């Protein structure tokens, strides 16, 4: 993913820089920044980046879409861009055309289940669905007696109870009671709920890594501005070491997330090596969000704890993104089980497989 050669990512970066400046957004109590940002993103075809052109999308590659998500993370973008991209991607798996407008995906947690009933309707409950309140449509993965199906559902046909995630974005409970989908088709062979969770997890990993990059940048800048005890706090060795640790966490998140994205973009099968990449990224990025975010706040002192300062836009979102599509502890258990099942002598071959 050489970003300098990636025109899709460059377009996204430019839109974010123009319309998603963290300071402007933070000062705008009415949320009037949202509409122009979403309009510009839609005009550029970014929400449906992963949807093929014959399914109403812009047909960008997986790699290009992933770099849009990295950029979205760096700007802590709080419109349903990642969610709409994921929804379009999910629908495209079953060759269902994407509608215009905001979308999200359900379920967003590996433990929630949505079922396809015998009469062709959908039932079930999904918690922690990001931006469901803002979505016009929901892309749903449903299990039935004949395996998994992918469906497009109108948000208005579902009961949606608003919830708030740590970052202040909607994280809602979606209940489907015999909802008739707009479109429904069988999922491709081998595609299951784990596939959706891994893809969602990689998206969140890139966003977390992006947020950490920004936290590192603003923390370094602040440490070079803030004077205490008659010198810049960046000159205190304890502060320098904390920032070096933050750089390490940011680097680890970046490496894990971009490696997983690369694995998804170039993978032919959902094999164990792919599982390792995607699960490890979610685990390691979530750990980095916790450790790195704590350091960013420590460096900023009390000012970073205020609602006026932009730090929380990154730190709280990075923490919130840990919970979507399986938390780090969930994936750690799954990865640990996989490793144990393969056996001790297969651990190193798995780690060193590429």
């Amino acid at each position, binding site marked *: 993913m050489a970003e300098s050669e990636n025109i899709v990512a460059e377009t996204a970066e430019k839109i974010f820089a123009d319309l998603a400046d963290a300071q402007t957004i933070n000062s705008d109590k009415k949320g009037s920044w949202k509409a122009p940002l979403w309009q510009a993103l839609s005009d550029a075809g970014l929400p449906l980046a992963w949807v093929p052109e014959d399914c109403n999308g812009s047909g960008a590659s997986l790699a290009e879409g992933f770099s849009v998500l990295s950029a979205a993370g760096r700007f802590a973008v709080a419109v349903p861009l990642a969610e709409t991209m994921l929804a379009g991607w999910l629908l495209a798996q079953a060759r269902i055309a994407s509608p215009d407008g905001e979308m999200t995906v359900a379920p967003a947690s590996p433990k929630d289940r949505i079922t396809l009933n015998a009469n062709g309707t959908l039932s079930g409950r999904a918690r922690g669905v990001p931006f469901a309140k803002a979505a016009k449509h929901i892309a749903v993965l449903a299990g039935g007696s004949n395996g998994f199906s992918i469906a497009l559902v109108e948000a208005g046909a579902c009961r949606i109870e608003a919830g708030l995630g740590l970052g202040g974005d909607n994280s809602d409970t979606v209940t489907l009671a015999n909802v008739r989908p707009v479109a429904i088709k069988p999922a491709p062979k081998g595609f299951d709920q784990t596939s959706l969770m891994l893809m969602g997890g990689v998206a969140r990993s890139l966003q977390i890594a992006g947020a950490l*990059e920004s936290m590192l940048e603003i923390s370094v800048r602040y440490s070079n501005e803030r004077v205490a005890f008659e010198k810049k706090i960046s000159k205190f060795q304890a502060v320098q070491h904390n920032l070096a640790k933050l*750089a390490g966490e940011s680097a680890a998140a970046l490496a894990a997330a971009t490696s997983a994205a690369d694995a998804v973009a170039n993978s032919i099968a959902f094999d164990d090596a792919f599982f390792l990449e995607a699960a*490890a990224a979610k685990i390691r990025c979530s750990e980095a969000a916790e450790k790195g975010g704590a350091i960013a706040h420590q460096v900023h002192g009390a000012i970073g704890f205020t609602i006026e300062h932009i730090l929380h836009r990154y730190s709280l979102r990075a923490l919130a993104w840990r919970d979507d599509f399986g938390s780090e502890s969930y994936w750690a258990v799954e*990865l640990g089980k996989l490793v*144990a099942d393969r056996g001790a002598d297969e651990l*190193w071959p798995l780690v060193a497989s590429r």
Partner: protein
Amino acid sequence: MTAALRFDPIRLPPECEKLRKEVRAFLADEIAAGTFDPHKPNREDTDAPEFSRRVGERGWLGMTWPKKYGGHERSFLERYVVTEEMRVANAPTRRFFVADRQSGPVLLKYAPEHIKMDILPRICRGEVCFAIGMSEPNSGSDLFAAKTKATRTDGGYLINGTKIWTSSAHIADYMIAIFRTSPPTKENRRHGLTQFLVKMKQPGIQVNPIGQITGQYEFNEVVFTDYFVPDDHVLGEIDGAWKQATSELAYERSGPERFLETYYVLTELVRAVGKNPDTRSAEGIGRLVAQLHTMRRMSVSVAGMLQAGKEPVVEASIVKDIGTVWEQQLPHRVRDLAAFVEENATNRETLENQLSFAIKTAPKLTIQGGTTEVLRGIIARGLGLR
């Protein structure tokens, strides 16, 4: 971005996978022949000279060096694969590893031609062992505090002073050491150090063993008394060794040996928990594997930067910082999880022995090759803080 850190997802090319299979087969043969026991990292036979020669015969020493010096002109990524397979198998690499990783590249860059022609092919054949003479009593990580003096004499220098914590000096044929040729200047406290090639088995050098808390013997004190070094054994610029020393560090700091030194306890834990671990063990193993995978991706990425001719000093320091802190914590995390292992796990005794050794090894991991504090200073400089 202030930091502009990049860790591109480098993938190992197909020739690396072929090579990996060859290395694994070779190591399996060595284990079967009784050269070493991969389950006993605490053994005392770790200088295995015959093993060293056989590794050389396979073409796995001096892999990236020019053919005219006995090298093989292969890539850093291929060397990377050999290093990680040796490390994971707990192979006895002590005799050749320093020469292959550090001393050889220093000679390639700074030694006169006749010395390169003499020594490099022997390193490639696994015949020579090197030590690194950096630390001195009361200096350690503060390289610029080194005092051991090289005084000008006819045709060379006379060395007087003491190096310490010198790994493998007792088995080494050569040492690349830094000595003081001038006092530091007011403007530059790094000035005045020069790098020398030292022949070990000569009069004027006394090697005194220092035991380690692991029960092993690897460290030494090396005392020089009017030891003569000829002029053609000066490496690089007189008084300018600090530049040379720092530019080599990316190689030393980012490799797989910087997160795999206690890896064996993780394999042994997986063996002990069996096919159906309880949730706590599964989670613990999953987290450790995710962290290991991430570090390896970072380390491979740095190997790719080296292959591309870059000098990723900050990135390499980050990998060493995170990697060594991880390999230091690993035996303690495995110990936590081992509390839940069934009493009758067949490898329980091996696991306990390995844990005991790894816990004793752990304190050195964040010291060797630059302490965590020094590394964080380098990272901070890279971030523009100093």
